[in-house]
């Protein structure tokens, strides 16, 4: 594969696409698939074929295309006709009307307005192809400019130049901690070792976060390209994508993408005629949140229990199978190709002083427009909730926004005008995390939310270090007592002490950050705790004497059958 051959593939694909005068795009990401978008796709196919036959056969001028996430999951299934009309809540019965509307007047009853802040306020870098290309066809990705950044890196740049471009862009790890990506790459490239690895962390365990899943389902080749450029920069020749087993559609599309890239010589030996070789394989997670922690993730790839180990040595020096290993998140790798294409300076112009670029958020909870959004760093929470999110659902009162999942915190209304970036969130007592953003209204009890997260951390604690294993258990017990309205002021004091202990003495990030939801709610919603322990009432009316007794909130039974398969063998056709 040479740049010329790549251009030929792109040209052939563009020609193929130009044959169709009209295009109907159906969202085939997991959100819409669970709203039966496959049925919609089948009905549209049938309708187009029927019209074709009725018109006397010949060349079809309308293409029905599977695409990835279009963002507005609340409106699923989403269908786009041509470049202008977007339709929401489409059913298979609507297929004739939609096909009829091609090239004519839109079907007004299904139209989803696109001139609203949800679409206008977004800045798409990582998600630029999502909703436009077919995730199961490499040709479509190439026609959209895919793999040209890899060609550019291999052909015109040295590994050092690639790293300095990434450093100049100011990109920081999108997994949550925000470690400068350029610095990490440079450490791995300098680390001595005959063999190096590149690992993509796609173990998106935070409840309420689905950015990585959407990127993998909608544009898998972008992640592959990012990993290839990283491998070139650090001198690695083997890589793994560690992906959650709970994401069958993402796994399926990644498998297809890897096979296609191998077929075109973009993965394997002597990539594009260069001396670089890179082999990529998938490893499936098995439902352990702690495997998002890098050393636990490496243990899991090695076939062991996902238990973290003390650092240093950092994986950059001593990682997978004892070799230097670069670990980045899906979104980080997905940001690489555009940075190489447009230059680090271009990326650094977006965002705030210390947090550059864009961030993808999974907006969920009590807002009207739930879904996937990508905004420039520094967008305020108010813009997120009231403009992009379309305001509170059912006209309810805003209470808090939760970021960072079980490691993050709940921010009250006073932070609505705060620009969202790594520093501001940390200062407010939360974290960026992987990008889950859950909006809560006045029906949510913040003490119960804190208990919910502590329950999560208790169940997911790997058990290696005592502060986390025993501390989360006791903190959960105290919170349960408070939500059952049996608590006292002394319990709150003890919660604070335990929080301090866990934060300072736990081995890994899970235990160190587990007290965050408790600390942030204690800080901003102290009156709710007070009402629970002094007046023994729950202001939101959520807590009762049985609160937290439900077995659903106990840690999962390890012997329980937990095989879940969300539609394997489905989702698009290949």
């Amino acid at each position, binding site marked *: 594969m040479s740049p010329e051959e790549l251009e030929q593939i792109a040209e052939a694909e563009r020609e193929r696409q130009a044959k169709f005068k009209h295009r109907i795009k159906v969202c085939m990401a997991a959100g819409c698939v669970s709203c039966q978008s496959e049925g919609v796709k089948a009905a549209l196919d049938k309708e187009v074929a029927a019209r074709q036959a009725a018109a006397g056969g010949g060349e079809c001028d309308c293409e029905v295309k599977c695409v990835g996430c279009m963002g507005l999951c609340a409106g699923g299934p989403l269908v786009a006709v041509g470049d202008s009309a977007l339709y929401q809540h489409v059913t298979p019965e609507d297929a004739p009307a939609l096909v009829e509307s091609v090239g004519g007047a839109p079907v007004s009853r299904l139209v989803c307005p696109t001139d609203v802040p949800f679409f206008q306020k977004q800045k798409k870098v990582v998600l630029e192809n999502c909703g436009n290309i077919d995730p199961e066809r490499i040709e479509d990705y190439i026609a959209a400019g895919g793999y040209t950044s890899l060609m550019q890196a291999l052909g015109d740049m040295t590994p050092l130049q690639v790293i300095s471009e990434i450093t100049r862009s100011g990109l920081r790890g999108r997994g949550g901690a925000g470690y400068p990506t350029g610095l990490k790459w440079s450490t791995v490239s300098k680390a001595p070792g005959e063999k190096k690895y590149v690992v993509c962390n796609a173990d998106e365990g935070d409840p309420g976060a689905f950015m990585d899943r959407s990127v993998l389902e909608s544009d898998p080749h972008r992640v592959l390209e990012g990993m290839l450029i990283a491998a070139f920069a650090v001198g690695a020749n083997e890589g793994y994508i560690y992906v959650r087993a709970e994401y069958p559609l993402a796994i399926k599309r990644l498998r297809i993408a890897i096979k296609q890239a191998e077929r075109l010589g973009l993965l394997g030996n002597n990539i594009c005629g260069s001396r670089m070789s890179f082999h990529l394989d998938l490893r499936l997670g098995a439902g352990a*949140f702690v495997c998002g922690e890098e050393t636990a993730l490496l243990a899991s790839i090695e076939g062991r229990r*996902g238990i973290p180990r003390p650092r240093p040595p950092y994986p950059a020096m001593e990682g997978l199978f004892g070799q230097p290993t670069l670990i980045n998140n899906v979104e980080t790798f997905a940001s690489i190709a555009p940075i190489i294409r447009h230059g680090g300076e271009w990326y650094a112009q977006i965002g705030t002083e210390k947090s550059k670029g864009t961030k993808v958020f999974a907006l969920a909870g009590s807002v009207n427009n739930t879904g996937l959004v990508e905004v420039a760093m520094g967008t305020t929470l108010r813009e997120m909730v009231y403009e992009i999110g379309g305001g509170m659902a059912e006209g309810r009162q805003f209470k808090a926004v939760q970021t960072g*999942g079980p490691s993050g915190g709940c921010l009250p209304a006073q932070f609505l005008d705060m620009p969202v970036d790594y520093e501001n969130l940390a200062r407010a007592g939360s974290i960026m995390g992987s990008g889950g953003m859950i909006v809560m209204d006045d029906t949510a009890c913040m003490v119960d939310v804190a208990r919910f997260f502590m329950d999560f951390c208790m169940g997911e604690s790997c058990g290696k270090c005592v502060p986390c294993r025993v501390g989360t258990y006791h903190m959960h017990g105290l919170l349960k007592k408070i939500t059952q309205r049996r608590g006292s002021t002394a319990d709150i004091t003890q919660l604070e002490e335990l929080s301090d202990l866990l934060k300072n003495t736990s081995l890994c990030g899970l235990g160190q950050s587990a007290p965050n939801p408790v600390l942030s709610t204690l800080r901003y919603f102290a009156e709710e705790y007070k009402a629970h322990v002094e007046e023994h009432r729950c202001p939101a009316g959520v807590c009762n004497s049985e609160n937290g007794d439900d077995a659903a909130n106990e840690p999962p039974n390890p012997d329980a059958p937990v095989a879940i398969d*969300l539609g394997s063998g489905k989702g698009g056709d290949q």
Partner: protein
Amino acid sequence: MSFVTAVVCAQSQHFAGEFHKLLLTALAAKEGKLPVTPDPNRPAPPSADKRWKLVEATMRRMGNSPRGLIESLHTVQEVFGYLDLDALRFVARALRVPLSRAYGVATFYHFFSLRPPGEHTCVVCIGTACYIKGAPQLLAAIKQELGVVPGQTTADGKVSVLGARCLGSCGLAPAVVYDRDVAGKVTPQALRDHLAKWKSHVS
């Protein structure tokens, strides 16, 4: 003989064995036939069930090495629905890991199950978005209808109820997976109706 020498000897014997095996396979492949006699160094599957071939294929793909443990257990669970002791024993022996380690891995990860699943599975998402949008009410409805809590199977083996940490369908909260189909914005009544359909369905 010191411990280290013993290990080195054992390893070199092992490698010699592996090499011999590879050579035999290569020769056989060249002649267009594969050896019909089972390899004496490899444990035999617990039964004649054809599905073990898939498990063996995964182990082979992972080089029959201990690092393939999780992938192999995934295949066992995929084809048999759960991991029983025979399966764990077989995989542990084939990959040369202690049974305790295979058991440790199988019980550490929530995804692996040591009990057969019910005829139907109902997975209720209890991620944050689903939790604040009504997942607890769904669990209450299930408890009322079936008398089971997540992690349990009804006495007649009809329905297994599970809780999921997050399905990633937060935009459709609360979400439930009926067998393999994800349903969004589920109400307790819709859930009851679905369970009733399973109950009345005789298979």
